[in-house]
Each structure stands twice: as structure tokens, then as C-alpha cells.
């Protein structure tokens, strides 16, 4: 009896192994190819998908619909989305922090009668959740989101898990948006993503500290280094030993700091589509950010800081400078929430590397959230999701992101001087009430619009190839080794490069 049971279990185990090995689940790409072949061999005409039935250029060209002060729905959307009551999507973080998304959801619901249901997922878990949904072919969530889009997009697009959005991206529409972002949402000639928000970087400084150390507003990263060093000395002399010259993140967003250093010299991180960390520009940037900690100008604690931690640290008045998200230029206007900082802060576009660089190199990286459609969702829901994407990239929707929430618009046309006059504040208040948060102030002008526009104009976008998360992990690890003195800065960078080469080579 006992032997029989053991034998049965062993047999089942062997069968399970054989099942996994001999009948691997086909990837969506393989399924698509098979379907394509079958379709090619079938002479009967293929019925149009629901989203192909929408007349995206009626009642007016798509570009005009998108640029109108009030978004215009395309014709044929009712038939394409008939029967769809709800679109479920993953939202990065809690909706309480995304008032513009909430306002846009309300506008879309008023326009179409289709409800949007957000499932809030913490940014740190979003990719895992998305991956679980896609790999299990769960059709219940139509829209997935990448909060670290430049690193994550290529991976899931390559896996073939998303519905193509080619209908939304004819050349004339592509021309409305920054080329870097348009390039980033494509894979092998097809569009898969849209972007709802983006965050460019601004250089934050505290005027009172600059005054105390007798330094002007830094123009170059070399100025920043000198001033930050003086600021740290000043803080120590004042007994504020927990305050530092500059603060920055030690997690994934560390790469944004390194990238800022590279772009400010006119360089790029990618060369022929692959990481090039041994370029002179990258080496300079690497040594710069390592030495800031080694010389005690920045706290070693930055190694453990996330993108949120370091910006909060600046908000707590514990640093003189930071290269921070433009979103915080909006957040810090709420002086009640940041009493330690108060009004003692201002922003300029990111510094250039040194005085020899042109002004156009006052550039940093652009970070954006991407939305994609789950390939396994029902066709009509996918059509409805595309309609929502179409609205979210429009001037009206982007206006709320830029003017109310403080994100940057990825539609340059949004940056009009009088854009704020078009905001429906009653709707914003209603959204705040629904979210049970304090309504944002009814501002009469967009905070720090000039600096934000200047940053948005020079910002650089690079979409990294699949496997780049591993590459970045290697950089972060060796950055830690260099900062703690375990390795010399360039020795650590060389070691990281060895790992990166391995990770990006096919297995």
C-alpha cells in the first residue's frame, strides 16, 4: 500500500515534469504567428476588430480632435464599444495621489457612460502584478501600467502580451508628441503604448542656503559640486549634522542621476541600442555621483533612498539641492504639508556639465508612465480602452495632469500661457471630494511654468533594451561598492560593465 502510494506520487511528479518540458505553452507571439498563417490561408475576408471600426478621423482629423480645448470623441465609438460598461485598469499607487487621473476618469465617464475602475497597486509591486496578469492570460484587467516604462516597456512588448495600438498612431499624430517618447512605445514597427504622465527633472535649490554660503544659483554640475560642499560645511557649522549639500536616490532612479550627468555633456547612455557605460561621459558622471558621497557632501544614507525618500528629505529641509521630479514643484507649493521647507525653495532647468557646454545640454532624463492594453482582454473592451487612451493623451486630459497635479504633459501644445483658465475647478473639487482628499488650490497660474517648460524642451528619452533591469541592478550594486570604498570608482564601473555585457547577451 505504502509502496504503491509512493510509486503513484513519483509517477505524477514525472508526468508533471514531462508535461512542462514537452508541451511548453506557446507564447502569444507564437499564437499570433499561427493565427496569421491560418488567416493567410483562409480566402474569406477577416472581420474588422471593434477598434478598427471606429472612425478615428471623423468628425474631424485625429490631430484636431486631440488638440481641441475639449476632447472630441471619434465617430463609431458607440458601436465598437457596445455592451462595455466598465474598463478595469491598474493604477500606480493610490488614486488619492492622482487627482488628474480621477478628473479625467470623470470626464471620460460623462462623455461615454463607460465606467473606469482603478485597481491601485503600489509602484513597487506594479510590475509583478502586471506580469502575473499577463502571464496568466487574465482577461479581467484591460489596461496595465508601467511606472518604470523606459526599462519595462521593451520587456513586455517583446513578450507579445499587448494589443497593437497602430490605429492611434498615424504619422501626423506621432508628429504632435516628442520623438523620444513616440520611439519608446514601439516594438518591431508596431505601437503598443500610450503615455499618461511624464516627469521631467528640475534642479531644486534653497535660496537661503545659497545666500548663507555666498554662491549664485548653480549653472553647471561643477558649480553644484562646489556649492553643495560649502552647504554641507555650513550645515555642520550650524549644528545641523543631519543636513547635507545634495540628496539623491540610491534605487533605480540613481540611473536618472547618472543619465543627467551624461546628457549634460551631450552624451547618451545607449550606443547602437546597447548600454555604453564606459563612454567618457558616463565615466565622468559616475565619478561625480560616487564622489559626492565619498566626500561626505551627500549622506551615505542616499544608498537606501527611493525616489520618494530623497525628495521627501529635501522637503524636510535636510538638503540644499536636489535634482527632483517636476511634480514636486507643484507639491512644495503646499507649504502646510512641507513646513520645514516653507517657501525657501526654487527651481531651474537641470544644470549643464560645465561652462564649455551649450545651454541645450541643460538636460536630464524624462521618466514616464506607460499604459498598455492586455492582449487577452475581450475585443470590445480593448476598443473602449483605446478610446480612453485617445482621451488621456489629448490636450484636455494632459492639461489636468500638468496644471492640477504637477506632472508634465507629453503633449507640448498643452504649455499655453493661459492654459490654467481652461481648468474646470468645480470638477477638480468634486474629484477631490470623491477621493476624500483636500482639494488643490485654485491657482491662477501654473507653478514654475517657465522652468518646467525649459526642462521639458531639453529633456532626453532613451528606451532601454530587454534585460536592462539586470544591467541597472549591476550598476546600482557596484555604485554601492564604490561609494563604501570597497572598490575604486572606475574599477567598480568596469566590473559593472562586465556584468552588463553578460546580462544583455543572449542566454
Amino acid at each position, binding site marked *: *500500500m505504502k509502496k504503491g*502510494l509512493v510509486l503513484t*506520487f513519483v509517477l*505524477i*511528479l*514525472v*508526468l*508533471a*515534469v*514531462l*508535461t*512542462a*518540458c514537452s508541451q*511548453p*505553452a*506557446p*507564447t502569444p*507571439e*507564437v499564437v499570433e504567428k499561427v493565427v496569421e498563417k491560418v488567416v493567410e490561408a483562409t480566402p474569406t475576408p477577416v472581420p474588422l476588430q471593434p477598434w478598427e471600426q471606429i472612425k478615428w478621423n471623423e468628425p474631424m482629423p485625429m490631430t484636431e480632435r486631440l488638440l481641441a480645448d475639449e476632447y472630441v470623441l471619434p465617430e463609431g465609438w458607440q458601436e465598437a464599444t457596445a455592451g462595455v460598461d466598465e474598463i478595469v485598469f491598474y493604477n500606480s499607487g493610490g488614486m488619492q495621489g492622482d487627482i488628474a487621473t480621477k478628473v479625467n476618469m470623470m470626464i471620460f465617464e460623462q462623455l461615454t457612460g463607460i465606467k473606469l475602475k482603478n485597481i491601485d497597486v503600489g509602484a*513597487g509591486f506594479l*510590475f*509583478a502584478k502586471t*506580469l502575473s496578469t499577463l*502571464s496568466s492570460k487574465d482577461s479581467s484587467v484591460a489596461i496595465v501600467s508601467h511606472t518604470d516604462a523606459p526599462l519595462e516597456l521593451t*520587456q*513586455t512588448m*517583446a*513578450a507579445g502580451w499587448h494589443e497593437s495600438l497602430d490605429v492611434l498612431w498615424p504619422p501626423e499624430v506621432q508628429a504632435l508628441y516628442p520623438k523620444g517618447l513616440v520611439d519608446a512605445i514601439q516594438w518591431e514597427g508596431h505601437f503598443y503604448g500610450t503615455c499618461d504622465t511624464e516627469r521631467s527633472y528640475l534642479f531644486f535649490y534653497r535660496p537661503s542656503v545659497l545666500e548663507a554660503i555666498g554662491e549664485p544659483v548653480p549653472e553647471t554640475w561643477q558649480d553644484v559640486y562646489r556649492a553643495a560642499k560649502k552647504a554641507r560645511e555650513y550645515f555642520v557649522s550650524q549644528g545641523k549634522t*543631519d543636513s547635507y549639500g545634495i540628496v539623491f536616490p*540610491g*534605487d*533605480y532612479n540613481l540611473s536618472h542621476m547618472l543619465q543627467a550627468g551624461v546628457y549634460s555633456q551631450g552624451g547618451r547612455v545607449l550606443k547602437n541600442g546597447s548600454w555604453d557605460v564606459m563612454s567618457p561621459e558616463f565615466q565622468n558622471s559616475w565619478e561625480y555621483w560616487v564622489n559626492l558621497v565619498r566626500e561626505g557632501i551627500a*549622506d*551615505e*544614507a*542616499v*544608498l*537606501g533612498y*527611493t525616489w520618494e*525618500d530623497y525628495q521627501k*528629505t529635501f522637503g*524636510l529641509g*535636510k538638503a540644499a539641492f536636489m535634482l527632483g521630479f517636476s511634480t514636486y514643484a507643484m507639491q512644495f507649493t503646499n507649504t502646510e504639508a512641507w513646513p520645514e521647507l516653507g517657501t525657501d525653495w526654487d527651481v531651474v532647468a537641470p544644470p549643464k556639465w560645465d561652462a564649455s557646454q551649450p545651454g541645450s545640454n541643460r538636460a536630464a532624463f524624462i521618466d514616464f508612465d506607460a499604459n498598455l492594453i492586455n492582449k487577452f482582454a475581450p475585443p470590445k473592451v480593448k476598443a473602449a480602452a483605446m478610446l480612453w487612451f485617445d482621451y488621456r493623451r489629448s490636450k484636455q486630459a494632459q492639461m489636468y495632469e500638468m496644471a492640477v497635479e504637477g506632472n508634465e504633459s507629453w503633449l507640448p501644445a498643452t504649455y499655453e500661457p493661459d492654459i490654467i483658465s481652461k481648468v474646470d475647478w468645480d470638477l477638480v473639487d468634486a474629484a477631490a471630494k470623491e477621493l476624500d482628499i483636500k482639494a488643490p488650490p485654485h491657482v491662477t497660474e501654473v507653478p514654475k511654468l517657465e522652468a518646467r517648460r525649459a526642462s521639458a524642451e531639453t529633456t532626453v528619452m532613451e528606451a532601454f533594451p*530587454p*534585460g536592462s*533591469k*539586470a544591467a541597472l*541592478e549591476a550598476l*546600482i*550594486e*557596484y555604485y*554601492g*561598492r564604490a*561609494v*563604501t570604498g*570597497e572598490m575604486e570608482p572606475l574599477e567598480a564601473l568596469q566590473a559593472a560593465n562586465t*556584468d552588463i555585457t553578460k*546580462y544583455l547577451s*543572449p*542566454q
Partner: protein
Amino acid sequence: MRLSDSKYGALLSLPGLILLLVLVLIPSGYLFGLSFLRYDNIRPIKFIGLKNYQYMFDDRVFWLSMKNTIIFSMGSTALTFFVGMALAHGLNAMGKGVAIFRSLTVLPWAVPLVISGFIWAWVFNPAFGVFSDILLKLHLIQEPINIFGNPRLAMVGVIVADAWTRIPFMAILILAGLQAISQELYEAAKVDGADVFDRFAYISVPLNRRPILLGLFTTIMFSFRTVDVIFSMTPGGGVAKSTYLGGVYLFDSIFKYLNFGVAAATGVVIFILTLLIGVGFIRMAFGER
């Protein structure tokens, strides 16, 4: 019809066996199978034999994660054991108020590890955490202690957070064992002149061997495959990967690199190692039967 005892026993075990089959055996078999596939979600899935294992064993980061896992497991288990043991003896000796203290002891057990990680990450944060703040106010330190900025201290930090949630289980287990020991034995030992350490070494520990071994085994097994506390305290595995454990290597292989084949191979290795630890402890605990 009358069933024989063995058939009746088998029949009663059937639901459990079916659960075991569905939730353990089939997934385990599938895991083994996946570990032989190139399954990176970029190229078509293909049988590649042992190449995932080769890739993993050639990967410096895998070995680093194994080294860290051993340090972490040993550290967490040791801390859990010693504090749990002390607590259990304290509670056992306590008269009045024991129920309140026992309840308080159990509280951290109810906290999920990922939450424990967040709590301790805040406690240890040098900029706004209470740990450094208290020490600064007591003038015991001049500058905040940067636990997570220091590769050696970071490991201590995650061990503390992990042990904090495991100590109650260990304490309750040992306490239950202690309460099963007859008081007469202690009294007889006292009469024979045994001091408190003798009573601990010659009565409490030997007669409590199985609960202690069970506690140790459970702690080491769970800490061996920890991901959550690392995830919340030192995202990415800490400075210079100082807290990068085997479980995190597995997690990253799936959720960051989308390489299910390598992740499965890692899972198999962790499974085998955990199994070996389990078998070892079971032999130690029940081998004398």
C-alpha cells in the same frame, strides 16, 4: 461492508493527499520541467537541458545570494532562538499578568513580514527614524547611524526585522514545551543542589528538545526563502547587494528579468536545500524513535 484499518486510514487521508497532489506535487513537477526550458518571454520556448542551471551556477550574483542567505538564515534563527528562549522562560516564571504579557508577545507574529520590513525601515531610517533619534537625544551617538547605507549593518537590520516577527512563534513553542515539564523535576533538582543554569541545561533544554528543534527548523526553513522583508527594507537587495538573498534572486529572475527558466532552476535549488535542512532536522528530532 467493513473496511480494514489501513483502508479506512487511507480513505481518511485521501482529501489531504489530493490537496498535496494539486498544491505541491504537480506544481513541483512543473517547476522541475520549466527549469529545463529556455523561457525568457522574448524568444520561443525551447528545451535546453541543464543550461539554466549552468547559467545560474556561473552567475556571480547567485553565489553572492547563497552566501547572504546562509548568513541571514543563521543570524535570524539565532536571534529568534535566543530571544524566544529568554521570553519563554520569563513568561514561564511569571505569576501575575502572564496572560497580558503572553498576548503582547504574540502581537508581532500577526504582522506580515513585508509590513515588518516597512516598520523597521522607518525605525532605522537615519533621517527620520526613531532609532537614531533616540540615540542622538541620549547623546550616545554624534551622527545618525546609517544602517542601510552600510553593507554590514544592513544585514543586521534585515535580520532584526525578520526575527521580530518570528520570535513570538519560537517563544510560544518553547513555552508550551516548558509548561509540559513537571515542576517536580525542578524541585528535585533544587534539593540536589542544582542552580538555575544547571536546571536550564539539564532539565529545560533536554526535555524541550523537540519543540526547540521544531522551532529552529521552521525558522531556518522560512528565513531561507525570505523575500518580503528584503523587498520592503532594502529594495533590490541593499547597498552593494549586501542583503541580496536566494529568494530575491528567484524573484528578480521572474519579475525583473522575466526569465522563467532561470527562476525555475533557482526554485529547484532552494527547494532541494530546504528539503535537506528539513530532513536533517527531522532526523535529529525523531531519529531516536
